[in-house]
């Protein structure tokens, strides 16, 4: 068995385990789906009330795809937090696998889970607004930006995953803080042009800004990928920079936790 297949098999361990967890907590998965769908609907209804189909679509796309990104983000960010919570972290950290393998497994599951979750919400929302037409939509653009968006989010999510290593108690909550700041600056429900100048600076380094903009243009206006290079290259650059940076920072945090004895809770 080559080293690569060994690592791929090991990363499947995390996919399978997370699947077992989702399966065991299926009641909660359904509740979470209802929660997300209700959230997306209530935001879309603001557009419906304004009687503006374009606003309705803009909000809807924002709600649904922000949901996708945040689901992907949370599954990755919580990889460490759930093990901390269960007390299994020391065992997983002892296993003979690279940290990149560990995180690759978390990322793969996060994406598959996010896609299924988002698809379910999309269906619910489309059923709720039967008059909406997606005749213009460019599916390739939408799919492309979902992939690019998650790719660029992975590194940031890894940074969030570090927090529970460093802050034993409150690490997981701090990931939420990061998430809400991203929501604020990324133009999910409004154009970033209305934000104060200093906030727009942050907007430009948030991958969500470009990912949601791209999805919106593809879904509402049917713009092909080839015309959206302005959104594509920042995502590619950020993904390429953030992932190695996330891995590096994770390694540093792990070293720190091992030096200061922060991996353990009991015994």
């Amino acid at each position, binding site marked *: 068995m080559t080293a690569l297949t060994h690592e791929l098999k090991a990363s499947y361990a995390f996919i399978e385990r997370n699947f*077992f*967890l989702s399966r065991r907590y299926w009641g909660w998965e359904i509740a979470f789906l209802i929660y997300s769908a209700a959230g997306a609907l209530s935001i879309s209804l603001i557009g419906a009330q304004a009687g503006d189909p374009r606003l309705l679509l803009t909000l809807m796309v924002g709600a649904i795809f922000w949901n996708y990104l945040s689901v992907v983000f949370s599954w990755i960010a919580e990889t460490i937090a759930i093990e901390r919570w269960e007390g299994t972290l020391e065992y*997983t950290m*002892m296993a*003979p696998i690279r940290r990149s393998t560990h995180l690759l497994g978390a990322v793969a599951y996060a994406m598959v889970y996010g896609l299924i979750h988002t698809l379910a919400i999309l269906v619910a929302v489309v059923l709720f607004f039967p008059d909406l037409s997606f005749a213009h939509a460019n599916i390739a653009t939408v799919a492309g930006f979902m992939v690019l968006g998650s790719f660029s989010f992975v590194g940031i999510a890894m940074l969030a995953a570090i927090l529970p290593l460093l802050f034993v108690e409150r690490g997981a909550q701090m990931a939420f803080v990061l998430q809400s700041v991203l929501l604020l600056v990324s133009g999910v429900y409004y154009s970033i042009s209305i934000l104060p100048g200093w906030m727009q600076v942050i907007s430009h380094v948030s991958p969500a800004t470009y990912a949601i903009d791209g999805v919106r243009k593809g879904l509402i206006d049917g713009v092909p990928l080839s015309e959206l290079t302005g959104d594509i290259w920042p995502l590619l650059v950020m993904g390429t920079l953030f992932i190695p940076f996330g891995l590096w920072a994770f390694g540093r945090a792990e070293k720190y936790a*091992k030096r200061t004895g922060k991996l353990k809770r009991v015994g």
Partner: protein
Amino acid sequence: MSSTMLKEPKMTLPIRSAVPTPVPGVVPAETPAIPALLVDRVTKRFQVARKKAPVVAIANVSLRLERGGTIGILGANGSGKSTLIRLVSGLLTLDEGRVEVFGHDLEREEMAVKRLINRVSVDAAFFKKLSPMENLLFAARLYGIDSGFARRETVRITERLGIARKRLGRPVEQLSRGMQQKIAIARALLTSPALLLLDEPTTGLDPRSKLDVQTFIEEIRKTHDASIVLTTHDLDEAERLCDEIIVLNDGKVVAQGSPEELKRLVAERYGQAPTMHSVFMTYTGRSLDDDIAEEEAEDE
């Protein structure tokens, strides 16, 4: 602090021929066999409060475990047993010294070492909502073990430990603490570790389960060619399972030898009854008063 030192006999035993006590920094040239575990002058400190001096959890500890042997680590609560196990597991970084597992340096060849070891700790940590089978399958995959084989082995090992097959499919949270502990032992054995680190594996088990686990430990030692490091508060267990015992006190090795040697030593030197109980009491003679006195001294 100094009064404590005076009270404690800090003698270690003369070097035995079969299991050479490591001379700090030197691996005896006449021992060609690679030891299962070599701990060489290891120190670990924890910074517990900002302005206080760090706690020295392990102070200049050396030990050598030959292949197939079992070494027991005894000591009072807080003496550093679990810290030593964690250092060897790579869950804590060494401040000083080095650790080798079957000749592989822990820091430089981390992956090689990780493949050779597994650990069972006092707390049986699992995904509590998942079944033992799901938990063990996850562990097996991390170690690159094929899932079909892992399932068969899980059934075999847990049956051997007295866990009914039907329990393997139910959430771990429904099992008693003792059963969870047995599953934790099964998880470690599943990966066939050459060096097995057992941190109080039988604490909290009923007498029969304890015996099951002890018999099983003896069995794997023979059949799996495993070398074992065992910490325990059960002195009979230590005597039964270990060829060599190390007593830790405040992170320092205060006694080392086979159970027989240690018992003889306390009888000859301190006029105590030749039991493991006397050995423990003699070498860990630290009372609550000492602890408080030390704390007061630190606060000054």
